[in-house]
């Protein structure tokens, strides 16, 4: 049944876009390449402007120590966005986790300080457990009740944050296991342990997303929820697990908060919510779901931290940094758009193409 007298159908229907045929891989490479370029450019820019301050080892250490908590939150955000959702409650979850650890430590420490120190790993698990619990609530609302993720997590963000305020009475809690604090100050061969934690977390997330059935299902769910359901993929389970994992990562971020700074409060990192969305999108995550790269998100985290510390190095305020954040995001999106437009238009017929061949 050969059709020798015919041009291969897809070659024509494809409109010669054969080079784009490896769409997802090209997309992945592109967002990673783009972020590598951005990291290098940002780094070079500030290194040239104020090499003495920017290239100082303290500054570089600072970048490496401040990135992990944001990076872990951005990875959690990326996961939620991969399913086509979002998780606004991540920072509230992280704060609840930090507050839980601090409270437990202080409570146990009142009677037996040594015991409190030795129970540190348990407290850390408790913090991550709080994150899981928060993720469970989100997952329940999104997957079982069926609330739109942005609204469900807006609700839980407010609720979790309110809970934290009531719990702490709006004050800053002091007290954290020494082992956590020293972890925050330790470096292996010049690389802060916290940064290693980020890299390990990123590697684990990458394996889960790309190499496990659940990760692949998360991607498919985001790419087309209806087709996912019709392929026998249990959307409820996929969404539930996604929010559980992102909640757990939120809990881990809380642990990182405490390691960097032995205090916990309800309003720490208030600006992080939007920042991590910016990072996730900048790192190549499709806000409509179905596409993301872990490497891209890690690099985007570094870029923004480099810009942040660079702004400090050249004595610009955090407000000016906020302007830069927005400008970078919009610039990257504009470049994307221009690139798309230069290709043959992604016409509507692109959709009808498969059903109405040629």
């Amino acid at each position, binding site marked *: 049944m050969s059709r020798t007298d015919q041009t291969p159908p897809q070659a024509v229907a494809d409109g010669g876009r054969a080079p784009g045929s490896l769409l997802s891989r090209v997309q992945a490479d592109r967002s990673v390449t783009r972020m590598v370029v951005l990291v290098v450019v940002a780094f070079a820019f500030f290194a040239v402007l104020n090499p003495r301050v920017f290239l100082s080892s303290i500054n570089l250490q600072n970048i490496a120590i401040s990135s992990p908590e944001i990076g872990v939150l951005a990875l959690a955000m990326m996961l939620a966005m991969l399913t086509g959702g979002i998780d606004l409650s991540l920072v509230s979850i992280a704060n609840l986790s930090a507050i839980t650890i601090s409270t437990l430590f202080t409570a146990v420490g009142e009677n037996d300080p040594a015991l409190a120190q030795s129970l540190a790993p348990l407290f850390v698990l408790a913090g991550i457990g709080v994150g899981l619990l928060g993720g469970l609530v989100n997952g329940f609302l999104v997957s079982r009740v069926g609330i739109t993720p942005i609204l469900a997590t807006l609700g839980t963000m407010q609720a979790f944050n309110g809970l934290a305020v009531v719990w702490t009475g709006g004050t800053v809690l002091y007290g954290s296991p020494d082992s956590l604090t020293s972890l925050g100050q330790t470096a292996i061969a010049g690389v802060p342990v916290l940064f290693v934690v980020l890299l390990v977390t990123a590697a684990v997330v990458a394996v889960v997303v790309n190499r496990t059935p659940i990760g692949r299902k998360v991607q498919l769910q985001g790419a087309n929820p209806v087709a996912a359901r019709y392929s026998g993929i249990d959307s409820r389970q996929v969404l539930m697990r996604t929010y559980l994992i992102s909640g757990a990562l939120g809990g881990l971020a809380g642990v990182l908060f405490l390691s960097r700074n032995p205090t916990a409060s309800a309003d720490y990192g208030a600006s992080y919510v939007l920042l991590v969305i910016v990072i996730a999108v900048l790192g190549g995550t499709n806000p409509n779901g179905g596409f993301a790269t872990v490497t891209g998100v890690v690099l985007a985290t570094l870029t923004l931290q480099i810009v942040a510390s660079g702004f400090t190095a050249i004595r610009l305020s955090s407000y000016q940094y906020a302007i830069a954040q927005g400008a970078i995001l919009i610039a990257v999106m504009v470049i994307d758009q221009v690139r798309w437009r230069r290709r043959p238009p992604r016409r509507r017929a692109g959709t009808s193409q*498969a059903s109405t061949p040629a």
Partner: protein
Amino acid sequence: MTTPPSPRESVPVLQVRDIVKTYGGVTALNGVSLDLFPGEVLCLAGENGCGKSTLIKIISGVEKPDSGEIIVDGVAHPAMQPADAIKSGIQVIYQDFSLFPNLTVAENIVLTSAVADRRRLYSPAGSRPAAQAIVDELGLDLDLDADVDSLSVADKQLTAICRALVSDARVIVMDEPTTALTHTEVERLFALVQRLRDRGVALVFVSHKLDEVLQVSQRVTVLRSGRHVITADAATLDPRSVARHMTGRDVDDSRSVGLVPVEGPPVLEVVDLSLTGAYEGISFTLRRGEVLGVTGLLGSGRTEIAESLFGVLPAERGTVRVDGQEVRLHTIRDAVRAGIGYVPEDRLSQGLFMDRSIADNMIAGSLDAHRTRWRTVDRAGTRTTIRGLFDRLRIKAPNVAAPVRSLSGGNAQRVVLAKWLATKPKVLMLNGPTVGVDVGSKEEILAILRAEAAAGMGVIVISDDAPELVASCHRVLVIRQGRLAHTLEGEGISVDTIRERVAA
């Protein structure tokens, strides 16, 4: 169909002259010309990738030809813009109709022309009469105040046609106009086409359903591989000869199935399945190796029965046994676990992940089956599965990493099929397996189904395409108003009997 007053004597309303269009080295159209006269219906036929879509896009100004020109009423347009095309009275009605589902019929009919006229304010009161006038003129039974969302496919199509006419369309191009219509609706559409012709409107039909199109067209133009093959009077052609021109070879759509393999053990037993408002008391048995056709009008319950067996629309009463084992089918997961696969009617939104690769699509249903003991995806295993199916189903694509969006209808359908074959189902149901698939590919897909059945699977084909049922099914169930009206077997299966029983 009565013959119109010989259109050839009048002046063509649209002339296409020596159009050449290449996409990055691939020639999509190679010197194609055609004339379109007022009051005629021209059928544009050809396989996937023959250049039909490209030609329509050029006529409607969406794409610019490399060379050649479009002449509308004697005015040459070397580089037509979509706005020029609309102003010259050329309207394309796409398969999805491009209507606004949240607006009423009247608003949909009037709004685009109001926008095109750059009117700044929309007046519902002022617009309604214009919509009413068109609907009355065509003698249609359309509720102007209904939301388009709530309309049947046929009524949506009528709305789109009315919209085109409000913009003074003189050339209407319709992409697969009969695909989603029932037999009666097709008759209604063709009656309307007759009235449009009386108004002097010229129509271009792009369709795969050759027998239907030949009934309504005066002339047929066949394209193959971007070249014009033939333009002939419809009266001198039959579906077989058109198919031959399209493919360049003889297409065999004769019955190539034997009797029911009685010796095959029953793989699916359905007893007294009922769902209020959809179907009632459906019982049948499917044997291993059998291809069972289920047909009926749109809304007869044929799709609902399939969706119940796939757990999308759980039945209220009745029992289903797979391999003798009673199964509960409340969710899609239940069905998949029981070994039932379903290739849905709406391939684009329900069957495929358009932006993902062929490989990702193929493995989407069997991720859990390809798992290592570390609970990661077994990459070697998936690669073998994907490669095997890619070759077995002869999917035409550069490689398995190509996104499904770049595939033609026939190849996209094979990917959906592959996704289910990868799950090694006991029963595979296909709803409209060859809708939007060209003749050559259709034949191959049916051959694949027959081969899979012969290898021990039970196959159910839900379709309103009588020739397809004749070509592939051992038995055909005719559903009428939710009830199993007839079971056709062996020699009893013919295009005529099926059409007669379905409509009766």
